[in-house]
Every structure is written in structure tokens, then in C-alpha cells.
């Protein structure tokens, strides 16, 4: 299996000139928004708000359309990277512009393609529109780059570059204490990723000296090679994990998030919560688990613990918030804890659940931030205490809020449920006690969200709260796709899951191949009851793996 993956990637790399002359759609996903930003920067005049906005919308919609085209063309049977592109960039360092997409990154790309146009449409900056839209589009290009690149160097480049536009979005168009929040955001994330650069370089150079090959930053080659010594790999994993933990954010390094989310402009919050937090969790999957399987297994209990702490802490902190936006921000910490929990369950259910939760959280928290932004626009306050009885004045908005909130809580039938359920199953199979504690987080989520909803939309309405206008049609149209996704993925998640599954299975296989004794401790942890209830699934999986292993052996012999 692993060899086929490698040879596939390599063959597509090698045959780039001849066979792969088709449209380089992945590069386009990065270049289009970037060009859009350039065009906006070069547009004449600062006052023509409409023109710049239209340009931004056009660029982001084209990007979104391209991402949906990729979704359409995606071959769901393939567990490797598709649409791959590769070109040398700096030969002396073995850096190449290589792009690829698989089931893991597919939906994150689509989510990015979807959320950016919505965020641009939904909110106006208020002042300095030109740089605002330019920064947002640069941000989109950077985020796309993180999800698409297969080169460690470019991963780091994109991972860092997204800080700059977000820094300006928060610092220039944010609210309240925005300079503080922006600087804090920038420094936290940069401090986190600083060591990752050392880690990336160590990976590349130590692998090169271990294998005797030239230095390369190609993810697939490095991951399939697994040439690092166990102890070294663990240290390097930690340097990556720190970067991703800050970005996620996990418990002790999360303090930038409430500030950044609260002070950011609405579009910034939507993008931050919807897409940018996923850079960390995606990084764990792609560059943690895939590159350092052994270290991931070794540190899994630690990461799980942090995830669970995040779930509980986020929930409790959210309960105590007086500011609606801050409450949603803390709820993000709890949700991201779930994603980490799923990821480090290191089994198919857990990872799939985590992946699904990434998309779900993007959709529902994005929608929540949009709604909070709309309320703020109308009432110029986000204090829960000052809002009351909005339902009377804005029944439609209350309805939409209800759906989104229930999705966030994880009500069966809506998208949040599927992801949380899979995550918990995965975690339960791997590490039971963590899963049980995490389940408590679900209940807490229901508590704080419902309580907040009750205080904001129910209760006596007074003063300005009575006269608050309801959702406008344009706002409704912006929210509609998100609502549709919330319901659709809740009822019929199969199309999403079946596209993720091959890639996730390949990843789990990769971990199991690389860590020989990985399977045993988990099997020992299971009691008889568990084994029975999951026996069918397990057998099926094991058979699959067995076949694939044979394949890979054959491939190796050839």
C-alpha cells in the first residue's frame, strides 16, 4: 500500500511534463485569490467601495467554484494524492512546488472555498475597503496553500504567511482592544511555529544524511522513508506539535484565541474560526501523524489529555462569559478539543470523526459568528446582559440561530452529531476514560449554548431590543448555504465520509505499518463487551489491511 502511494506520487511527479498537462487547478486555487488581491491593490481610487468589493467577490467566487470543481472531479476510490503538480523551486535546497489533494484535505479546501465568499459578502469593513479586501484574498491564498502543499518548506511558508493578513484584519478593522489582540495573535502563533522551522529542517537534513540522498522537503518522500531515529523523531514531533497546538489552540497555549476572536471584525472571526483553526488540526493529521507515526503513538495519551482538558475547560469558560462573541470563541476551544481527541485516537473512526468535526465546526461556528456579527451591527453591543428578548423583534434570526446552535451542540439529525459521535466512538475504542470525560463536554456545551440562547432571545425585551430589525434577505442568502450544509450533512453524511474514508484508512495503515506493536495495546485495552460490539467492523478492517499489505509487498518485490 505504502509503496503504491509513493510510486503514484513519484510517477505523477515525473510525468508532469507529458501526461499532466491538464489545468493546474490546485495552483489556480492559490493564485486566483492572490491575483484578485493584486488587482484590488492596483485598482484606482480609494472611494469606490463597490468596485473593490465586486472584485473581491468575483475572485473568491471563482476560487470557490474551482474548489467545487475539484470536489466534483475527485476520485473517491483513490486513497492517494490527486491533481498532483510538482515543479522545482530552489534546487539547492530540494524545495519544490508540489501540490496534491486527498480525502483529508478535500473538504477543508471546499470549506475554504465556500466560507471566504460568504465572509466577504456578509460584512463590510467600514473603512479602508481596498486593503481590507486585498488582505482577505491574500489570507485565502495562504490558507489554500497550507491545505494543498505537499512540501514541508511551502507548508511552513503558507502557515506563517497567513499571520500577516490576519494580523492586519484584526489590528486595523477589529474592535476594542484590537492592537493588543492582533499582536498577541501574531506572536503566539509565530512563537509556536518558530520551532517548527527547526523541526522541518531537522527532518529534511537528518533524513538526507540517514538515507544518503539529496536534501528534500517533499512530504511523501519523507513520510514514506521514515529514516529518522526514534528519539529524534519524537523531539521533532514535539516541535511540530507545539506549532499546531498554538494554532488549534490546545489548552495551555490557547489564550490568544478569545482575544483575537472577540476583537476581530466579523469576517475575520468567521475565517479564523471556520478555517484558520483547522490549520492546526490539519497539520496534526498531515504532518504529525503521517510524518511521525511512532512519535504520534508515543505522545497520543498526552495529546488526548490536552484535548480533553480543552473540551472541559472551553465549556466551563464559555459558561462564564458575558460577551456573546467570547462565548462562541470559548466554545471553539471545546470543539477543537474534540477534533484533537478524534485525531489522536489513531483509528479510522476517530480520525474521520475529527475530520468531519473540522468541517462541521467551520460551518456552524462560522454561521454563529456571522449571526453574532449581525446582532452587533444592529445593537452595537455583544454583552449578553444587554441583549434580551430578541426573538420578538427578529423571529427569523432567532430561528436560524436555533438551528446553528443546535448543530453546534451536536443534536442528532444535524451535522454536529455525526462528527461528535464518530469521534467519541473512536476515542472510546482507543482510550475509554478520556472518551467518557469528553462526553461530559457535550452536556456542558448544551448547557452554555442553551443558556446563552435563552438569555439573548427569550426573556423580556426592552428599549432598543424591541426595535431590532430582522434578517435582511441578503443576510439570509449568505446564511442559507451554511444552513443547508448543517441539515444535509446531519441527515446524509455518506457522500462526505466515503470520500474521506480511503485517505483516512491509508493514514491509519501507514501508522500501523510504521509502528509494529501499535495494534496490541489497544486490543488489550478492550474488554470482552467492546470486542463483541465492534467485532464485525474490526474484522472487516483487518481483512482490508491484510489485502493491502499483501499488495504492498508485491509492489515492493516488483
Amino acid at each position, binding site marked *: 500500500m505504502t509503496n503504491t502511494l509513493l510510486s503514484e506520487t513519484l510517477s505523477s511527479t515525473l510525468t508532469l511534463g507529458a501526461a499532466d498537462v491538464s489545468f493546474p487547478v490546485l495552483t489556480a486555487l492559490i493564485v486566483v485569490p492572490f491575483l484578485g488581491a493584486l488587482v484590488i491593490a492596483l485598482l484606482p481610487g480609494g472611494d469606490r467601495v463597490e468596485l473593490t468589493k465586486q472584485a473581491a467577490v468575483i475572485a473568491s467566487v471563482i476560487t470557490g467554484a474551482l474548489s467545487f470543481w475539484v470536489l466534483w472531479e475527485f476520485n473517491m476510490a483513490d486513497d492517494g494524492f490527486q491533481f498532483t503538480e510538482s515543479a522545482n523551486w530552489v*534546487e539547492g535546497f530540494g524545495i519544490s512546488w508540489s501540490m496534491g489533494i486527498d480525502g483529508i484535505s478535500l473538504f477543508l479546501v471546499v470549506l475554504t472555498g465556500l466560507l471566504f465568499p460568504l465572509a466577504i459578502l456578509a460584512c463590510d469593513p467600514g473603512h479602508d475597503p481596498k486593503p481590507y479586501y486585498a488582505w482577505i484574498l491574500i489570507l485565502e491564498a495562504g490558507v489554500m496553500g497550507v491545505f494543498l502543499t505537499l512540501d514541508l*518548506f511551502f507548508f511552513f511558508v503558507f502557515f506563517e*504567511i497567513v499571520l500577516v493578513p490576519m494580523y*492586519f484584519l484584526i489590528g486595523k478593522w477589529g474592535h476594542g482592544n484590537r492592537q493588543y489582540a492582533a499582536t498577541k495573535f501574531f506572536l503566539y502563533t*509565530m512563537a509556536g511555529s518558530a520551532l517548527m522551522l*527547526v523541526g522541518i529542517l531537522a527532518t529534511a537534513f537528518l533524513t538526507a544524511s540517514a538515507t544518503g540522498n539529496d536534501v528534500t522537503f517533499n512530504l511523501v518522500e519523507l513520510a514514506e522513508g521514515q529514516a529518522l531515529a526514534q528519539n529524534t523523531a519524537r523531539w521533532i514531533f514535539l516541535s511540530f506539535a507545539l506549532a499546531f497546538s498554538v494554532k488549534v489552540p490546545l489548552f495551555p497555549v490557547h489564550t490568544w484565541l478569545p482575544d483575537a476572536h472577540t476583537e476581530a471584525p466579523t469576517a475575520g472571526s468567521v475565517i479564523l474560526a471556520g478555517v484558520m483553526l483547522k490549520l492546526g488540526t490539519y497539520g496534526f493529521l498531515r504532518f504529525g501523524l503521517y510524518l511521525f507515526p511512532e512519535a504520534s503513538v508515543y505522545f497520543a495519551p498526552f495529546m488526548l489529555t490536552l484535548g480533553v482538558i480543552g473540551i472541559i475547560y472551553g465549556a466551563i469558560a464559555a459558561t462564564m462569559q458575558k460577551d456573546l462573541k467570547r462565548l462562541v470563541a470559548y466554545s471553539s476551544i471545546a470543539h477543537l478539543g474534540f477534533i484533537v481527541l478524534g485525531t489522536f485516537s489513531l483509528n479510522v473512526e476517530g480520525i474521520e470523526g475529527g475530520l468531519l468535526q473540522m468541517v462541521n465546526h467551520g460551518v456552524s461556528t462560522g454561521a454563529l459568528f456571522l449571526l453574532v456579527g449581525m446582532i452587533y451591527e444592529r445593537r452595537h453591543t455583544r454583552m449578553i446582559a444587554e441583549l434580551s428578548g430578541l426573538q420578538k423583534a427578529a423571529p427569523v434570526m432567532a430561528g436560524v440561530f436555533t438551528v446553528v446552535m443546535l448543530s453546534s451542540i451536536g443534536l442528532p439529525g444535524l451535522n454536529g452529531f455525526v462528527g461528535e459521535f464518530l469521534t467519541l466512538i473512536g476515542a472510546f475504542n482507543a482510550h475509554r476514560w478520556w472518551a467518557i470525560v469528553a462526553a461530559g463536554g457535550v452536556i456542558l456545551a448544551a448547557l452554555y449554548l442553551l443558556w446563552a440562547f435563552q438569555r439573548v432571545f427569550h426573556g423580556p425585551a426592552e428599549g432598543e431590543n424591541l426595535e431590532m430589525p430582522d434578517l435582511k434577505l441578503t443576510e439570509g442568502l449568505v446564511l442559507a448555504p451554511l444552513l443547508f450544509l448543517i441539515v444535509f450533512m446531519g441527515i446524509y453524511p455518506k457522500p462526505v465520509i466515503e470520500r474521506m474514508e480511503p485517505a483516512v484508512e491509508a493514514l491509519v495503515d501507514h501508522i500501523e505499518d510504521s509502528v509494529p506493536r501499535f495494534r496490541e495495546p489497544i486490543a488489550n485495552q478492550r474488554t470482552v463487551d467492546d470486542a463483541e460490539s465492534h467485532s464485525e467492523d474490526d474484522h472487516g478492517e483487518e481483512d482490508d489491511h491484510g489485502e493491502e499489505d499483501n499488495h504492498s509487498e508485491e509492489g515492493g518485490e516488483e
Partner: protein
Amino acid sequence: MIIQTLLAQQAPVEAIDTPAIDWAILAPLLIMSVGGILMLTFASILKTLSSSVWSIAATMISLATAITVIPLWMRVTDTENSATSTLANAVAFDGFSLFLTVVIALSVALSAMLADGYLKREGLEGPELYVLLMMSAAGGIIMAFANDLIVLFIGLEILSIAVYVLAAMHTRKLESQEAGIKYFVLGAFSSAFFLYGIAMIYGATGSTNLIDIKNFLAATVLDDDALLLAGFALMLVGLAFKVAAVPFHFWTPDVYQGAPSPVVAYMASAVKAAGFAAIIRVFVLTFEQYRTDWQPVVYVLAILSLLVGSFLAIVQTDVKRMLAYSSISHAGFILVGVQAATERGVAAVLFYLAVYSFMVIGSFGVLTVAGGTGDNAHSLDDYKGLSKRSPLLAFALMIFLFSQAGIPLTTGFFAKFGVISAAIDARSFWLAVVAMISAVVGAYLYLRVIVTMFFAEDDDSEEDGADGEATTAEPIDIPLGAGIAIAVCVLVTVVFGVWPGPIDDLAREAIPRLVAESAAVLQIGN
């Protein structure tokens, strides 16, 4: 009668057999130094010329120097072993010296462009600054080409003495003269140490020629290497002063703050480049065999420079001082590459020096223009709302600061990437970690300036209303020369930030070698 006897005595004296000279190799140096002397001559004849003429002439001469390097570069990279020496092995001819010559020449060109508007604004018109710039650059080029410790010392003194004068150039400004005298005293102090080190090396090896020294050390096992090591220590002290490495940095903030901004641009780029040229040629190349003795010292210098530079920069409220401390931290980064003592490390250092020159000249270029008459308005408060007064300047400074912070898609990122790669390749993991930590601390400092430029005016206009806007909205005139220089720096920083390949390739080809005229190649790793 006496004369006759003297003449009679002289008759049998045989002529001295002077060494052969390869004039082509000396061409860049000759263009730069003779250009400076010619300008001095013409200046005394043509007194009424506008001072812009001198700026243009200096720029042209520097560019000519850089262009002369192109055929030489082709010659040296033509075949594998075409590096050589000339003038009794005193002048090295290799890619390394040519690369740094170009860096120094371009620094002069850009600084000369910046200086034009500055001199007019300060009422200091005249050719002297350009003459001294070019002479000083000639010293830098001599250092880059030096294959002999005495030549290196002379080059260092030419470079330094001209810069002492340049720092004190603003004769109507007390700070400038103070900067000059502080730099002078400490510079002379460090030169004495450097020279003492040369004497020790001479005593330990019997020669001042680097090729002879390397051959001697390769052929001889010293039972007592104390003298040699003392020489290392003293030379390193002297050179660390020149490149402003901690703990020999304390002149830097004062001098950078007081000296005229275009001169500071030159100091931060060319002087640093020349200093590192000496460090690499002497330590990495000549004393390569003794690297285990000097590497730990450089390691400590690098760590101290990185940390002290970035942490002390944070507490500064004057932007020029801030950049001075940040240049100390950059020296630390470059030392990280030196410490690796490999070809990769040297290439990384060269790349760093090349791109750092552009970003630092750009930064001080913006400061030159934004400083206002007297070159005094450099406190953080003076930069409030620069984005409103001059969006272009603010944007340019933002690019340079991001580049210095090492944000991707700027040259600064790839420069840091290079030196840290070299450190990791040489297994100096902790040094790499410290370097990255200092990069983050440095980022805070650059963000402070960016916040002030871009965000602070929002607060003002909200708090003070129309009043605040009226005071901040005075636009700044950008002189043509400075504008071009800053634009070039922005372009280089961004274009090669996205596509660093070309400079990286050149830096890799520019490997220093010690080759005697007609002798075998001595290079790193032998």
C-alpha cells in the same frame, strides 16, 4: 663628489623582482578607488555643480564596479579550479571575493542615492560624503580580496577610518560628532586588538599570508598552539567589534542613532559584509583545521548577539536605536551560519549578507526620508500615522520590517532559513532553537513599529477628532534618489523573497578558496 660616490655605489644594485600583476582582478577595486579620487579632483575644479551630480556619479561608479565583476565572475566560475591569486598571493581571486564586491558596490550605490536628498535637506551639499563612501568601499573590497593578514588590516582601516569621518559628517549636529568620536575610539581600540592578533598569528606560523599559514598549519603539528589560539581570540575580538556582535556591540546603538541615516545604511550593510568577509576567509577557510577551537567561541557570540540584540531592541523607543539593536541580532544570525563552518554555511552567510543589505538600506532609507530636517524625528511617536502621511513609505518600511522579522515571501525569511539549515546540517540544534526564539522576540519589535505606523493613527483620530488628523496629514516629500533606492530595495526584497533561487545559486557558487598563483586548491573540507 658625495653624489658621485653614491651613484657609483648604486650601480651594482640589482633591480627588485616585483611580482606579476593580474590587472583584470584589480579592476573593481581600481574603479572604486580611482573613481573616488577623480571625483575629489573634479570637485575642486568644478565647484558650482549641483550636488546631485556627485550622487549620480557615485552611483554610476559603484554600478560600474559591480558590472566589472560580471566578466570576472564568468572567468572564475568557468571551470572548476579557476580561482587564483595575484600580486604575490596577496589578492585572492575567487567567487567569494567577487560576490562580496558586488554586495559592497551595490550598498554604496544605494546609499549614495539616499544621501542626495539628505545632504540637500541638511544643507551639507558637496562631494565629500560620496568620496569617503567610495574610498571606504574600496577598503571593504580590499578586505573581500585580502589573502594576507596585513592587507586585511589595511583594508579594515581604510573601511573604518572613512566611516568614522562619515559618522561625524553632519558637522552641525552634535549627536553626529559624538557618534563619530565614540565609533572612532572604540574602533581604534578594536583595531589594536585585531592587529595584536595578527602579530600572534605571525609569531605562531611565521607568515602573514593566508596561503602560507594554511600550508604551514596543514604540514606542521604544533606541540604548543597557545600563541595561535591567543591570536584567534584577539582577532575575533577585533572582528566581532566590527560586525557588532555581543559583547562587543556597545558602540552600535549610539553610533547608529547619531550618525547620518544614509551613512548608517552603509554601515549596516557594507561594513558588516566586509567584517564577515574577513571572519569567513580567516576563520572558516584558513583556520578550518582548528575549527573545534574557534567554533565554540563563535557559538557563544552568536547566542549572545541573538538574545541581547532582540531583547534590548524591545525596550527602545527610538526607531534608529531599535534598528541598531536589531542589526546586532542579525549579526547573531549571520554568526550562526559562520559557526557551521561548512560550504553550506558560507553560502547561507553570503545570501544573508546580500539580501540583508537591501532590507537594511531600505529601512534606513525610509528613516532618512521620514526623519525630517535634522534627522531627529525618530522616536516611535514620530512614526505615528506614517501610513497616512506617506502610504508608500509606510508600506516600504513594513516590507523591510517583515523581511527582517523573517516572514515568508520576503528575502529575510529565506536568509534565516539558510543559516538555520546550515546550523542544523552541522548539528547545532540548540543554536537553531535560540535563533528562532530570538526571531520571535524580534518580530515583536518590528510589530511595534508597524502598529505605530498603521494602527496608531486610528486611535488618534478617534480620540482627538479633526485635530489629530490635521497634524498627522502632512505629506512627506520623497526625494527622487531616495525614492528609487527604496523602490529597488522593496523590489529585491519581495521578488527574491518569492524566488530566491538565483541569489542562492550565486551564493553557492561563491565558495571561498585559498589558491596560490599556480598551486593546488585549498578549500573547506580538505
